[in-house]
């Protein structure tokens, strides 16, 4: 019994750990897309953030400095995105793709030039990383069966960014649905003309959304390189930005449903990690590549089983111009 609980709890705990970058990116995408900017560039912003975090954390031996750098770099990328598709009304998808390619190239070039370790950053010492935190009374509650296991292994023992992410979801929901900024954000993605004639600057609002998107992607990047791993690795985002985008679509651009979609993807990822090399009854050992493909396959199935266009912000993808 206790063994089963332990197994389940540890599976869920790794689900949570794997979900964090997805959730952050999906929330980032939520801001961008609710404002009317399709954000294919989540992946690139996250990757750039991951590299910035690992580099600065290494130089300054501080995880928090790394986080700040990640957010700044990622915001800079978001501003370039905004400059292309808000100021110059460029194709949003193309701009996002440009950022993705640019991030892959820049991080590899700079890592190679700065650290001479073949495109990765040096391994970070514990002090320069976000380390697991123990919640209060872990020792006392840990003794209680089941509940103790859940408390110690599922709720406690994560790093600061995990708790930050958990707190951010309700905050984002509140901002989007209960504040002036949220009202305007939701409006500008649906009908920017209405926002413009109400005396609000469409461009400024969209830039603000891109700032939020950049900041969140930066946190996601820092999580990858300074919390989950101890260095930046080439292309370490591995499509997570796109999974997050799919989760956002599946979550109908709403914070809470999107959170659950991210958890589903992360669960698939956690599960595939567990199943590697395991003999399944009746099937035998599943090839490792098939397991690794599981999250991507799941994304496809969810996207295909669910027609997303009906719920998308109506003006997303369309550069704003006063003339119709």
């Amino acid at each position: 019994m206790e063994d089963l609980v332990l197994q389940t709890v540890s599976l869920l705990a790794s689900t949570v750990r794997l979900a964090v970058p997805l959730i952050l990116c999906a929330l980032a995408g939520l801001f961008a897309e609710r404002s009317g900017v399709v954000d294919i560039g989540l992946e690139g912003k996250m990757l750039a953030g991951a590299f910035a975090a690992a580099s600065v954390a290494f130089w300054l031996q501080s995880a928090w400095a790394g986080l700040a750098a990640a957010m700044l770099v990622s915001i800079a990328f978001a501003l370039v995105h905004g400059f292309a598709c808000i100021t110059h009304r460029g194709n949003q998808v193309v701009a996002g793709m440009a950022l993705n390619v640019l991030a892959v190239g820049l991080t590899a070039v700079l890592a190679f030039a700065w650290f001479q370790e073949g495109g990765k950053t040096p391994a970070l010492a514990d002090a320069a990383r976000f380390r697991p935190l123990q919640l209060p009374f872990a020792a006392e509650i840990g003794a209680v069966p089941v509940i103790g296991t859940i408390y110690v292994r599922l709720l406690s023992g994560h790093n600061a960014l995990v708790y930050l992410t958990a707190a951010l979801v309700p905050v984002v929901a509140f901002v989007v649905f209960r504040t002036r900024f949220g009202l305007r954000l939701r409006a500008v993605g649906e009908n920017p003309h209405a926002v413009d004639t109400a005396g609000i600057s469409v461009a400024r609002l969209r830039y603000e959304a891109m700032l939020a998107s950049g900041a969140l992607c930066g946190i996601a990047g820092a999580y990858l390189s300074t919390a989950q791993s101890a260095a930046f690795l080439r292309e370490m985002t591995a499509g997570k930005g796109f999974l997050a985008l799919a989760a956002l679509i599946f979550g109908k651009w709403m914070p809470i449903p999107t959170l659950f979609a991210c958890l589903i993807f992360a669960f698939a990822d956690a599960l595939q990690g567990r199943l590697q090399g395991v003999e399944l009854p009746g099937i035998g050992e599943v090839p490792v590549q098939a397991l690794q493909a599981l999250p991507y396959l799941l994304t496809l199935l969810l996207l295909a089983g669910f027609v997303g266009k009906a719920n998308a912000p109506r003006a997303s993808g369309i550069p704003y111009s006063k003339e119709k």
Partner: protein
Amino acid sequence: MSAGARLPRWVDLGLLPLLNLAAAFLLSGLVVLAIGEDPIKALRILVNGAVGYPEAIAFTLYYTTNFILTGLAVALAFHAGLFNIGGEGQAYVAGLGVGLACLYLDFLPGFAVVPIAILAAAAFGAAWAAIPGWLEAYRGSHVVITTIMFNFLAAALMTYLITNWLLDPAHGAPETRRFAGHTTLWTMQEMLGWFGIKAPRSPLNAAFFLALAAAVFVWIYVWHSRAGYRLRTVGSSHKAALYAGIDPARTIVVAMAISGALAGLMAVNEIQGAQARLLLSFTGGYGFVGIAVALMGRNHPVGVCLAALLFGALYQGGAELAFEMRNINREMVIVIQGLIILFCGALENMFRPTLARLFASRGAA
């Protein structure tokens, strides 16, 4: 249409893309500077490495072949309003088609197995692209996300097949045995030899002409065929297409299939032409380069060929650069590629208002 200010044709098709390109290279130069190398020297090495001697030119054209094909793939899909960023995966799976044909049909004579392998490449690439096309057309799943997912799936599938089933056990590396000589394409060295011209050994092969033929095909298909008219109409407005009796969903699947077939032909150059064996990750990011090539070439076959030539030179010169300069690695080319997508694609209109003003005031004077 304030962004669509009208410009003389030579400005629109010549000067504007050149300005965008110049901006991309300027920023690339700054990156080189930032990592402590001399951009001018870097450029000199790059150019010399790309076109400085016969072997370099051959390598440049060999890369160009890949980029023409993946660039055409992106361009054709673009005309149907689709952003196919799955060229990488489509070419990878197409390699399986070539590999299977060359490995298991090599009892056939060359004139049979060579075209079969080429068609297999096109068919496998088409199939791998048609599924995301179907998902977009009938299930509303965004083709950008699905093609990316299919890239990951292609990587997993090919790794599994090559490492578990196709690899040559006598060989250490995860790759198949060499294809029989008669199943592969002529090398440029061979072909020039017929005319008594001595050429250096290089991976450049007959697929180069296949790529040029593909460019002509795309030109005819998109602008001079009824199917191309349907494709462009769907790309402009689904409502107009339906009104005109054109089935948007079907057209999307067909467009993706042709796009995938074009990307798939890249495998012919790599697997059947240059490598003569199927190996892991032979696509090397060329599928993604196709995006930059298409955008820079304004989705027109002539532009795509020119842009592909530029990228071919960049790749070949970039390899030389990484060899010569301590602080620069091959990914420098990816930086340039990203900047070109940014400036020639997303920011294509940045200089337009300025130019329009310039030419308007000149016209008025």
